[in-house]
């Protein structure tokens, strides 16, 4: 390990400073998300009782996550009975190697992918490209990000930060198409490229929104129909899914599909909802000849072992907590430097990639709780940020900070000393303007951008005492009359 300041934290600071002052981008993101909010509120209102739906969803996920082994095995048994293959990957490397080996063994040349955050998580594209495979992202947003050479900005809306003209410029540069301002034309440009990719691909890779245990199927929900083609056309299919995505019963989707659509995009139901139960069966006319499901652990079991934060595995990746997060809206998705951005990303990344390197994400929150309020499966998101802070301080206290809190405690458990200290507030206020916003201003990180209030001459304590004296006096006088 280097002795230098850790890079993720530094990168976060630098990017946060830059993005939080990029007013046009912030305004655009805010606008997009306020449209989302209007749609979500409208659709949410069509649930008879959103609150009870949330409670039911939380109960189902709790059941699933607390019997994860049982439900995953149930899936495996049903899925393999139909000729599907299941691979259990403990970490990214195992998952990558399995897919690379499979591609090599089958003589695969080109691959088409539909949206899979697990793919981002294990840096799959990079590994495939390094081995010389052609890989095309088929989700429009992901495709744009791939062309741009950038990670997704938001795990549901990968290119939400880009303006239409920026996308048009990108297409012009990368594909040589003419400039256009029409969303339909932009979509058509991408579609032409993508159709070719589906036809040429000999392997399709997808994620999965739900693993349904009792029928041994995976559920994929999407708006463009691209996942359908990704699964249906190539000879071999691989679905790379986090182990926490399980639900016990097919019937549970009656709740989860509309809930995911509502919380995620404000739709009643996502455009295309498909269920896949394995490879093409005898007598069927389409579907892949081979269907592999790769179950990705990659430290999810670490989270499972933590009873306090285990509910973070309930996440259905709807993105709602990002959409309402004032931090996300002001710093944007790339600033996090993680696969999963926003509040839920700040909770789980320390478990996946190490608390010491990623604790700053839990610190960079005002703990406003908008995320927890909106989460459809009732994850206690913002309190988990507090728990991460506590665990980080216990694991490796920051020397300076610990000293500060020790001094703070020393003062706060001595009321007389505390009172004495507060007596200096008016004097401090008197002198503060002399040094405000200079190098020696102790509250400069406040005063650089905001005024600091001046302390009035008489504190509340002093005023209250005077008030009580006056009252006593008045009642004494009253008594003698």
């Amino acid at each position, binding site marked *: 390990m280097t002795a230098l300041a850790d890079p993720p934290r530094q990168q976060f600071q630098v990017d946060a400073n830059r993005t939080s002052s990029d007013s046009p981008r912030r305004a655009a993101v*805010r606008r997009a998300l306020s449209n989302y909010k209007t749609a979500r509120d409208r659709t949410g209102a069509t649930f008879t009782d959103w609150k009870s739906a949330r409670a039911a969803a939380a109960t189902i996920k709790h059941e699933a996550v607390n019997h994860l082994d049982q439900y995953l095995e149930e899936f495996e048994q049903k899925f393999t009975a139909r000729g599907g293959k299941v691979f259990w990957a403990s970490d990214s490397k195992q998952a990558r190697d399995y897919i690379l080996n499979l591609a090599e063994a089958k003589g695969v040349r080109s691959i088409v992918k539909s949206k899979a955050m697990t793919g981002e998580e294990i840096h799959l594209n990079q590994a495939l490209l390094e081995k010389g495979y052609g890989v095309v992202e088929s989700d429009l947003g992901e495709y744009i990000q791939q062309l741009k050479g950038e990670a997704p900005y938001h795990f549901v809306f990968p290119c939400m930060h880009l303006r239409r003209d920026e996308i048009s410029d990108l297409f012009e540069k990368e594909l040589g198409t003419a400039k256009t301002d029409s969303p339909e034309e932009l979509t058509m440009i991408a579609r032409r490229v993508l159709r070719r990719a589906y036809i040429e691909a000999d392997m399709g890779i997808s994620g999965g929104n739900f693993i349904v245990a009792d029928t041994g199927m995976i559920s994929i929900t999407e708006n463009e129909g691209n996942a359908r083609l990704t699964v249906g056309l190539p000879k071999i299919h691989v679905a790379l899914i986090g182990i926490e995505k399980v639900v016990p019963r097919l019937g549970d989707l009656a709740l989860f599909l509309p809930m995911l659509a509502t919380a995620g995009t404000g739709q009643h139901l996502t455009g295309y909802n498909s269920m896949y139960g394995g490879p093409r069966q005898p007598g069927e006319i389409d579907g892949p000849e081979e269907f592999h499901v790769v179950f990705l652990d990659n430290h999810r079991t670490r989270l499972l072992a933590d009873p306090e934060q285990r509910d973070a595995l309930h996440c259905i990746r709807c993105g709602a907590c990002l959409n309402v997060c004032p931090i996300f809206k002001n710093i944007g998705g790339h600033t996090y430097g993680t696969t999963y951005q926003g509040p839920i990303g700040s909770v789980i990344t320390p478990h996946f990639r190490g608390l010491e390197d990623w604790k700053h994400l839990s610190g960079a929150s005002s703990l406003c709780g908008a995320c927890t309020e909106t989460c459809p499966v009732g994850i206690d998101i913002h309190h988990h940020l507090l728990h991460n802070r506590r665990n980080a301080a216990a694991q490796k206290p920051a020397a300076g900070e610990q000293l500060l809190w020790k001094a703070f405690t020393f003062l706060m458990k001595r009321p007389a000393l*505390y009172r004495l200290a507060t007596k200096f507030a008016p004097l401090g206020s008197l002198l503060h303007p002399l040094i405000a916003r200079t190098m020696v201003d102790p*509250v400069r990180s*406040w005063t650089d951008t905001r005024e600091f209030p001046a302390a009035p001459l*008489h504190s509340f304590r002093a005023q209250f005492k005077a008030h009580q004296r006056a009252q006593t006096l008045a009642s004494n006088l009253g008594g003698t009359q």
Partner: protein
Amino acid sequence: MRVTLFVPCFIDSLYPNVGMAMVHVLERLGHTVEFPENQTCCGQPPFNSGYWDEARVVAAKQIAVFKDAEVILSGSGSCGAMFKVFYPELFHGQPMEPEAKAIAAKTWEFSEFLVNKLGVTDLGARFEGRATFHDGCHGLRELGTKLAPRELLKHVKGLELVEMGEAETCCGFGGTFAVKYPQISTAMAEVKCNSIQETQADYVISNDSSCLMQIGGWLNRNVGSIKCLHLAEVLASR
């Protein structure tokens, strides 16, 4: 009723009027107000920073000070939430857990106490002006306070209350967050204050003085004309 006030350091030193306004409102309703001299800080700063051992030492001190209170009120929804929501968590599984829970049970947010405990909505207050209300996050989401302050403000004569678009959006204060991540915190303040300005209000009212320090800090640097007031100050005026 005997009401015991918890007045956090920044209200004590920077916003004494808020504390006094609470005293006036409660006394006018015929209640006795007391202020234990030995109170200091609720312990939220070390608690939010992850230093729970240190926070427990400070919190234990307040639990001892407020042990005999009948009702505890605070001028900051944030400190109120510390007493009410986080003390039980901080002392969970510790010897002091029962005492922490007892403190939590008798702590009230100021407006909730007036409306839901005392059943009062009209305090006979008069305040001329156009105002908008900021929901402090701790009050709103930890304590569930939304309607009570509005109910009280509706009965203030002369006051015109206009809701802002971002009423429930965090102002960006967040305690030590405001100085650890000043850029993000200020960007959040800007969003909040732009929404305030859109209402063309002359006043921003809140039930949390810590939010008002942030909002006022930004407004005074960038706008100047909009004033911040604590709910108690409006309710005390006539």
